């Protein structure tokens, strides 16, 4: 009799554990898709697609993004590659600066620092894999394009520019450098 009860209790616990694990995995995998306060949701209302928006940072009054470095000036632009690829450009200053590429679901898929600057400008063309292929198909063998082309794993997301201020007094200058991030539609040849 006790053996029977023990077996029943074990199957009861096993069923509960399996169900708990299933619920847990479903929640964890869905979380990025239902998160309402993720970085993209916080940034999206601040500007239209392809507009460069300077983020208010550096102090506790602007609770924009947690774990943001108060020494970093940040600007971003949203992209929507459904309407075509974009050209991302930013001048490199004398301090550290970087451009990172994010999908709207929290994936960082590429980054460039000021070390990648050519003639003082960091530049890349961002498109969907199909758009990148279309651009490559029109490359001229005689005078190949020098563009750095990045294929985005999702059509929506944002490009973030970070500029380091070496001293608090240089923060305003870092902000004006970050504001020079530009995201413009890039024509695809037909």
């Amino acid at each position: 009799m006790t053996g029977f009860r023990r077996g029943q209790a074990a199957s009861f616990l096993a069923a509960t554990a399996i169900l708990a694990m299933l619920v847990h995995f479903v929640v964890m995998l869905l979380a990025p898709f239902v998160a309402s306060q993720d970085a993209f949701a916080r940034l999206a209302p601040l500007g239209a697609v392809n507009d460069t928006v300077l983020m208010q940072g550096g102090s506790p009054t602007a609770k924009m993004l947690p774990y943001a470095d108060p020494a970093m000036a940040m600007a971003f632009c949203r992209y929507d590659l459904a309407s075509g690829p974009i050209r991302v450009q930013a001048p490199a200053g004398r301090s550290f600066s970087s451009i990172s590429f994010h999908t709207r679901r929290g994936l960082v898929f590429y980054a460039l620092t000021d070390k990648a600057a050519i003639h003082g400008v960091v530049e890349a063309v961002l498109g969907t894999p199909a758009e990148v292929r279309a651009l490559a198909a029109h490359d001229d063998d005689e005078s190949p394009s020098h563009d750095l082309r990045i294929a985005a794993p999702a059509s929506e997301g944002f490009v973030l520019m970070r500029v380091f201020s070496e001293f608090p007094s240089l923060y305003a200058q870092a902000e004006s450098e970050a504001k020079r991030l530009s995201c413009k539609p890039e024509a695809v040849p037909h």
Partner: protein
Amino acid sequence: MAFFVKALLVCALGLGVGLLASAYALSHLSPFDSSRMGPWRLEAHAGSTEIDPYTRARIERSGEIPLAAGEGIQLVARTDDDGRPLDARCVYKVGPRVPSSRYWTLSLIDEDGWPIDNLARRYGFRSSEIMRAGNGDFTITVAAGVEPGNWLPIGAPGRFALALRLYDSPFGATADAIDKSMVPRVARVSCG
């Protein structure tokens, strides 16, 4: 009837435990991608496409934008060297060195990653502005009350955390390779 009651109980318990485990996982570092270096914790793949689902879910929930692997790495300490939670009533000395990087910053944040307001309006230190000893070593004193030298004020009572960011570090993609003896120590000096 008894079976129905048991099945209902299994469903309720399974749902409850599953949701509790998820709530915990969404507010704590991923067990699959966090390494420990002294008191510092690091999510080595948070800023790459190799991010694991736990880290990704936590980051999406918190709203932070992780540093990309090529930009730098972020280390967060919530305890001192001896594993005691960082407490605003105590005084800490942080130093004397950091792993190699072009620039680094050390800032003080609350448990959710927000800077804490303080009268000195000092939220962190940059490697480029810090006072150092002749051999390049540094000490940052983290305390609620005024301290000489590199003083990082704790603006609010309770627990807090320290964030160390290494920009343009050769360890960007191989953060696990950082020599543990190179991360700064977080030593508790006294407690009021």
